[in-house]
Structure formats: structure tokens, C-alpha cells
């Protein structure tokens, strides 16, 4: 079997933290306030959510982000490219608009409701060689990236466009509220008294290819999958699934724990996730301790888009030699973890990104500077 390598050559994203990769990274490093307090989604409650600013239509944003990536790439079009979407919301936000207005399913377009609604929309504008959509809740686009690496590694495709996307929807905001895990203020992952998470929307697009086309390309070096096999919403209390996913990613990348210099954690801000993930990191990285931060304090939890937007953050960190800081943690939930509340400048070779989801679905990705 062929063993090609997978390189992220181009990417673009939009989120509550900015309208470009640069704006996003600056917002993280300067610890800007990006999360809004909202009273419209949940009846009689204020919740903090991450809304994209300065845009009119979410679909137009989606097309625009893909166009930006195409324009900066070495491709004339996407006709030889596999589209891999990662989403947990799909077209649910559109369905809600129609259903709440009509009080009936009658006018819901079957192609614009499910997860495939994203690919359906993109295929109206771009021609792709083929497409597939992953929907594993909050690991959706991390799994999309893992698949991109896999199909390139196996020599099946040369170009893969990964699109991580989730719009805000009543279902997700009200659903997480029902689970009592939403914070009414900007989230503070890994803070001892963290009050919960912020649901957010984002679009993150990455072009993954079998050759680096730019001097600052970043390699997807490893992917690791696991299942907790424990509980639908509660992660394993000892982080066994998370440990397994991280170890599998390191093994796949043919590196060891000492090679990882930064972990972009899943870090939602919920007690269950943060406690479990920090135990997992402390257990696996018990000798060599990399810096750990959760950039969800700036982006919010973008659900199915999280893996893709955090991949972009990892590529920025590697390219700039900058470890994204934590957002002013005063009392750390787990003292065995190494964090920094200020930017750390350091030449980085390998970083790791975690994504965990409902159902105990765990995915870890290793990104690195190509050797």
C-alpha cells in the first residue's frame, strides 16, 4: 500500500473570533472578548454564545470560505478534489426556520435538512470529484480531517477539501441548555470553578494535498480514534478513551509523548469533559509535559466545526512558533497540567489536537512541520 503524506496547504475560517485565520489567532493571543450574551435562543434564560459577526447569510459565508481557499491554492477548480464535510447541525437551522413559521414539515426540503445539506449547497457552486459527510457530533470535522489524511496516505486521492461547519441552531443551544452545561458568561475551560460551555458557530475550510505547495505547509502527521464505550454524554472519568485516542495518534505519527510541545485541548468548559481530559493528558504526558490550552475560551464550542477550526489554530501555532495562551486561568482544575496565560514563543515541531463527542467518540490529530 502507498504511504503518501498529507499536507494542509491552504485554509480559511470564520467564527465569532474573527473573519480570517489571522483575526482568529490574534483574538486568541490577545484574549479578546468574542462571546455574546444572548436572550433569544433559550426562553427566560441568558446564555453566552459565539456568533459570527458582520455577515448576512451563513450559506454565502460557506461559499466564500471555500472560494478563498481555492483562490490561494494551486488548483483551478475542485473537479479533482474529494469534498469531506464534518458537521453535526447540517441543515437543521434551515429546518427550524421553516418549521417554526409553518408549524408543519410540508415545506422542508429533504435535501436541505440533513447533514448532507452542506455538501448539497457546495455542489451547487463547485464541481467536486466526490464527496462524503461525517457526522459524529463534536468530532465530525476532526474525523473529516483524519479521513483526509487516510485517503491521501493510501494513495486514493491527491486533493481533499475538508469543510468543518456548524451554524447556531435552537436545537443545539436549547439542547445543551437542557443538559445544564451552558454557561451564562464566556466559558473558562480548565478553570477550577468553570461554569460550563458556550455553543458557537463557525466555518473552517482546509485543503489537504499529497504534496506541500507552500514553504509553510503543515503536515497531518497522525490520527488516532477510540471509543469510550462508557456513556452517551459523560466521558470516561479516568479519561481512558481520550488516552487511547491520543496514544493512537502518536503511534500513527510514529512519534512519542516527548515530541509533542503543545496540546490544543477539547476543553469545552464543562466539569465532566475538563476533568476527564486533564486526567487523560496528565496520565499520558506524565514525564514530558507539553503546554495545554483550550481555544474554546475564544471561539466557543463550534461543535462539528471544532476539529477543523482547531486544526487551523494548530497550523498557525506551528507556522508562527507561538503557543496559544489560556485565557487568564486563575486556579487550574488540575495542577499536573502545564499552562501559560501569556503567549509563549517557541519553535514547534509537533502539536496535538483533541476532539471528543457524544457517544464517547474520540479523535486526536497530530500536526507537524514537514521534515
Amino acid at each position, binding site marked *: 500500500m502507498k504511504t503518501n503524506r498529507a499536507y494542509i496547504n491552504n485554509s480559511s475560517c470564520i467564527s465569532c473570533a474573527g473573519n480570517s485565520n489571522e483575526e482568529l489567532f490574534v483574538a486568541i493571543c490577545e484574549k479578546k472578548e468574542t462571546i455574546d450574551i444572548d436572550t433569544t435562543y433559550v426562553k427566560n434564560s441568558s446564555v453566552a454564545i459565539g456568533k459570527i459577526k458582520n455577515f448576512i447569510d451563513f450559506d454565502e459565508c460557506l461559499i466564500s470560505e471555500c472560494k478563498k481557499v481555492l483562490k490561494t491554492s494551486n488548483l483551478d477548480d475542485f473537479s479533482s478534489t474529494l469534498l469531506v464535510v464534518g458537521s453535526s447541525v447540517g441543515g437543521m437551522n434551515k429546518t427550524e426556520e421553516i418549521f417554526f413559521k409553518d408549524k408543519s414539515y410540508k415545506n422542508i426540503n429533504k435535501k436541505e435538512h440533513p447533514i448532507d445539506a452542506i455538501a448539497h449547497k457546495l455542489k451547487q457552486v463547485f464541481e467536486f470529484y466526490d464527496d462524503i459527510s461525517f457526522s459524529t457530533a463534536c468530532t465530525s470535522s476532526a474525523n473529516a480531517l483524519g479521513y483526509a489524511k*487516510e485517503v491521501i496516505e493510501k494513495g*486514493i486521492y491527491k486533493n481533499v477539501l475538508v469543510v468543518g461547519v456548524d451554524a447556531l441552531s435552537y436545537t443545539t443551544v436549547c439542547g*445543551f441548555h437542557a443538559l445544564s452545561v451552558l454557561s451564562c458568561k464566556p466559558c473558562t475551560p480548565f478553570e477550577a470553578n468553570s461554569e460550563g460551555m458556550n455553543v458557537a458557530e463557525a466555518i473552517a475550510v482546509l485543503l489537504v494535498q499529497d504534496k506541500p505547495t507552500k514553504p509553510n505547509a503543515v503536515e497531518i502527521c497522525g490520527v488516532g480514534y477510540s471509543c469510550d464505550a462508557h456513556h452517551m454524554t459523560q466521558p470516561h472519568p479516568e479519561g481512558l478513551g481520550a488516552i487511547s485516542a491520543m496514544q493512537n495518534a502518536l503511534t500513527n505519527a510514529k512519534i512519542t509523548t516527548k515530541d509533542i510541545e503543545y496540546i490544543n485541548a477539547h476543553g469545552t468548559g464543562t466539569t465532566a469533559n475538563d476533568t476527564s481530559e486533564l486526567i487523560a493528558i496528565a496520565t499520558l504526558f506524565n514525564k514530558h509535559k507539553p503546554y495545554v490550552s483550550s481555544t474554546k475560551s475564544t471561539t466557543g464550542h463550534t461543535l462539528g466545526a471544532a476539529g477543523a477550526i482547531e486544526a487551523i489554530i494548530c497550523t498557525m501555532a506551528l507556522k508562527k512558533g507561538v503557543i496559544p495562551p489560556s485565557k487568564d486561568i486563575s486556579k487550574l482544575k488540575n495542577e499536573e497540567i502545564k499552562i501559560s496565560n501569556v503567549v509563549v514563543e517557541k519553535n514547534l515541531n509537533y502539536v496535538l489536537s483533541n476532539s471528543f463527542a457524544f457517544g464517547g467518540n474520540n479523535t486526536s490529530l497530530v500536526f507537524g512541520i514537514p521534515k
Partner: protein
Amino acid sequence: MNLNLEILNVTYLINKTAITNLNTKELIPKMVFRRRLTQASKLCIELMHNIDFTQGRVMYASCFGELNSTAKILNSILNQESISPTEFQNSVYNTPVSYSSIWHKNRSEIMTISSGENSSNKLLKLGAIKALDGDEILLLATETLDIPNIHEVNTSCEYLECAVALKVRITQKKENIAIENIDKKLPKSIALLVEIAKEFDKNRDNIIRVTL
């Protein structure tokens, strides 16, 4: 590129309404676990039992996912009622294979895709690419469309509940299954897999070509 998959075993269930003659009570004796299961979760557990696959990698597909939970949530929001936390956790597309992984303590890689009406074909492609690693993989697909007022959007599909499982591995053998006719009364997203399952003959090799 073409890859050939050897189909090692199959099982499927189709019905015009919700399938009720399941062995869920025997398969999941623990009531506190059983009562949380969605219909698609019950179907997956039934098929995994029938095909004797509880450990290993599972690739799952559904076009519409957990439609019943989704509809209940939408109606709760519309009527300004509280959302059931269980309904929300059950509304994600990977719910059925997550419950089965929890029940069977299967810690392997488990993926869920949703590619509209082409979900069957995309699942075969995903399965073939994953199977290049050399292991036996379970391909699972369900559609559970028998929910109140589904007639408002469903005009063509007669079989509202379908579930199919294929145990596969990669092979160099020549293909001998070609599907030419697809039952239009089945949900399009799952029909191809059901037709492949119908073609399975345990007294011969069963090989299908997957064109990537």
C-alpha cells in the same frame, strides 16, 4: 480506482412501519439502559447480534439520522416546552452505534456518515478504504422514518423503517455481485445496501466492486 469487498455475512430488516418484533429485551436485559435506546439503536443492536459482530471497527450511515428525537425537540421548542435531555443526547447522528459500542464495550474506531440519498454508496466507499487496513469491518445503515406527520414530507418511500448490516473485508477476488435494479419503495439512502444483502448467498463467495 476500484476496490473489491468480500461480503462475509449480511442481515437486514425492512418494514412499512416501525419494526416491533425485536429481541431488544433479551439482548439488553438492563432496563435502565434499554429504555433510553432509540429505535435505530435497537435495530443496530439487533443486527449486530444477528450477524455476530460486537467487536471491531463499525462504519455507520444514515441520511436522516435520529428523526424521531429531532422532531420531538423541534416540537418542544415550538410549543415552548422543556427539551428532554435524553432526547437531545439521542438526537446526534452517531447515537445508534454509540449505544451499541457502550453495550458491547467496543472501543474500536466507529464512524458515522450521512451523505443524503447516496449514503449507501458512500458507506461502501468508506468501508472499502478502511478495509485496506486488513481487518473485517461492519457496515451498518438505518433509516427510521416512521414518525408522526412524516407524510407531510414523504411522498415516495413506502418502507419507513429499514436497517442493514454487511460484514466485509478487502479482497483480490473478482466481483460477482452487480446490482441492477433497486426497489424504489425503499429509502434511497439505504436501498443499494439492502439489494446487496438480498443478493448474498452463503454457499459462494460474495464479492462486490466499489468504484472510488
